[in-house]
């Protein structure tokens, strides 16, 4: 039973194979097996969103998905958000708008915000707040995060 499973998947655009135990979550697989420690562990119950990654374009708490379930999926983590040295507008606005303090929730917020903007390029403040409700931040009071997402949307719309 403890035999490790081979998982073939795509991570940040790269075809990737990894070995994991069935009981290892996708988060553990990313962090402990693949060394992609950008996704953070906050609660292991899907309540804080710090481990959010995109699975086939949808935001998922990687702590509530098994590594073996990643078979054949396309996974995007915070490490895959920038294109080379070109930051994603969300990353750029988080920096400019001082949207992070301790920074532990930042990768999760970036991924949830990306999932939102990919589907809804021009969201209202209420839509942003709804889309980010699964990500807890304890430092910022959310104000500057919501503003950064609005500003990133403007940049992406060329406004």
């Amino acid at each position, binding site marked *: 039973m403890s035999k490790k499973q081979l998982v073939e998947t795509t991570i940040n655009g790269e075809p990737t194979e990894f070995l994991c*135990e069935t009981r290892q979550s996708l988060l553990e697989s990313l962090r402990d097996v693949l060394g992609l*420690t950008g996704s953070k562990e*906050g609660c292991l119950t899907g309540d804080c969103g710090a481990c959010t990654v995109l699975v086939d374009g949808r935001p998922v708490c990687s702590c509530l998905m098994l590594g073996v379930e990643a078979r054949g999926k396309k996974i995007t983590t915070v490490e895959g958000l920038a294109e080379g040295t070109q930051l994603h507008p969300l990353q750029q606005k988080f920096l400019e708008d*001082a949207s992070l303090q301790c*920074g532990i929730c930042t990768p999760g917020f970036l991924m949830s915000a990306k999932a939102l903007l990919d589907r809804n390029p021009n969201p209202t403040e209420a839509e942003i707040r709804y889309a*980010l409700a699964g990500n807890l931040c304890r430092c910022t*009071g959310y104000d500057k995060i919501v503003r950064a997402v609005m500003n990133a949307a403007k940049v992406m719309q060329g406004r």
Partner: protein
Amino acid sequence: MDTPQTHQFKVIGTRPVRHDGLDKVIGRAKYGADYSFPGMLYGKVLRSPYAHARIKSINTEKALRLPGVKAVVTHADFAPQTTAPVYRMGGEAAVNPLYLASNILAKDKVLYAGHGVAAVAATSPHIAEEALALIEVEYEPLPLVLDLLEAMKPGAAIINPDLRRKDKPDEQTNIAGEFQFKRGDIEAGFKAADIIVEREFRTEMVHQGYIEPPNALGIFPGDGHATVYTSTQGPFDVRIMSATLLGLPEGNVKVVPAEIGGGFGAKLTVHIEPVALLLSKHAGGRPVKMVMTRTEMMRGATGPTSGSILRVKMGATKEGRIVAAKAWFAYEAGAFPGSPVWLGCFTGLSPYDIENFLVDGYDVLVNKPKTSSYRAPGATNAAFAVECVVDELANRCGMDPLDFRIRNASREGTQSVMGPKFPRIGYIEVCEAIKNSQHYRTPLAQVPGKYRGRGVATGFWINGGMQSSAIVNVHADGTASLVTGSVDIGGSRASTAMVVAEVLGLRAEDVRPAVADTDSIGYTDGTGGSRVAFATGLAAYQAAHDVVRQLKERAAKVWEISPEDVAWVDGKAISKKNGAPPLTLKELAPRLTRTGGPVTGRANVYATGVGPAFAACLVDVEIDPETAKVQVLRCTVAQDAGKAIHPSYVEGQMQGGTVQGLGWALNEEYVYDEKGTLRNASFLDYRMPTCLDLPMIEPVIVEVANPGHPLGVRGVGEVSIVPPPAAVANAVSMAVGSRITDLPISPPRLFKVLAARRG
């Protein structure tokens, strides 16, 4: 005179991108749990299901036999400890090492559900978890006490048999400490009052709610030198405490501070660092990584802040002058002494200049986790009670609540509750900032079918100074690096680097800030007490001036004049003797080699001149009368920063603290069952605000320069959490026409108030 308010700064007051920002948005920043080493093991702690029980035996044999398990340790593996204090925080604070060790791993009794009993290191976290289930602990359950008032009564179950009543040394007690502040004639004061308001308030334990679980990676290879990687607010605190618990000289422990995912006070002490080292020692020196689960940290391993009972009686003349105040505060310490009750006693009444007062405080043991610091520890509880009573007094006097506060305001020269006189403070200014805000000038519109209310409250926090060290290295390309020992929890690398840039005439991005390990920088107290921008900023400022002193000498050499004839003005060396063109650091840097070699500025400070902080909060709420759910509609916060070095991060502190206060006001609380088990030990049921629960938080930075700091800086980290619970309670009380006295104002609690009002 050139003051921080009139001086034209080039860097200070601007909003550059923080130096550590890039790493944090691309996922490269290393937090404690992100470190790994070859051969690393994973540690887990077995925790007590009982809230109070004697440990009769612990059998670890089966656990040790599980394949993959490399070590099991208990309290007995710590070096023997005594109650003699170990100093930390620059000697301003002490810990009782026996209590500390006994809290991390129980000695002979478990004192709360979640109390650590034993720890395991294994080749995977899953195996370590399985091993925990194989450790056999025989408990003898003891009577327990969870309620604060019950715990204070004679005959209550006794948690620490060595604690004795002050007045009757042969009687055991759960009251671990008594505090009193008293001035004037309280009886005469109340006699002079036309209006007296007396209320009892109650609050529950709340958690700091940082998102990153406490972690530690210990390496103790047996050569007597130990290393810990950890996300801590206080690397030097971790060093002294870990060394003490392991029986090592302090210098034999090196603490490498990782990035930290929030702490809010809870990560100023050790939770598992000594355990990781102990496990490593017993596992032949292999590195051991430990990361707590959310349940562990909430059930008790890291300490929430106190629940409290707060009785406040205040009297005022009908003209609106407070003439007497009496307060009785009891705070839960948890299972070991040390609640922040005295800070509550000291801060609660401090915004006001009151001639006659009496404040009594009690630090009370209950079978709940040992409390630890939480942003302005103790102050929020006390302010909740005092600011509600002040609001009622203002109402009864028919005065605007801010005018009432301004009429009674503490100002420069007012004797604080603790005794010393206030230096220049900005209490009146923050009240006025709220009065003048767009928000306050816009009347609250009522809507049919809802109750709406508006509330204000103010808060005070003492702020901290303590010790900091800083090194500024000048590079040959004319840039500089700044090395400090202050962990960056919310932008302090940026603000301290900006101070150096300002002094040296550089751009913010030309100063690279670094946080060093405990071997690589002089002693530095923890990132807490709102002290980093103030005290480490002061060290950075002085270290930069140490560089300037040396640069003046180098310029003098270049110009072949005496150093006294060189001035440093606006980031340039200027010759007072000949007409040589000024030299900037960029121009001097390549000439360092030929003028004497490298330049490094140093400063070690024990900072005095701490500037107290005040904040005021204005909040509008709407209540659904049928479900008793409170929605925050609008919120403005004003705070005196002294001088805002990086305004965005000052605003961030204000907004973040305010939202923690709003969470405390509305839904956050520890819920225990009768056996002393925390029922809501998860982010699902410990309800912190999500972004869908909040409006934008409007910050108003007030700058009343702190005369004790060369740039006028006060601390900004803490005080914003203090006013919101009272502001919300005042707003809700106004909306429903009934005084709210208990936190949180959750729907089931508010429903009771509404039902009682309806009859």
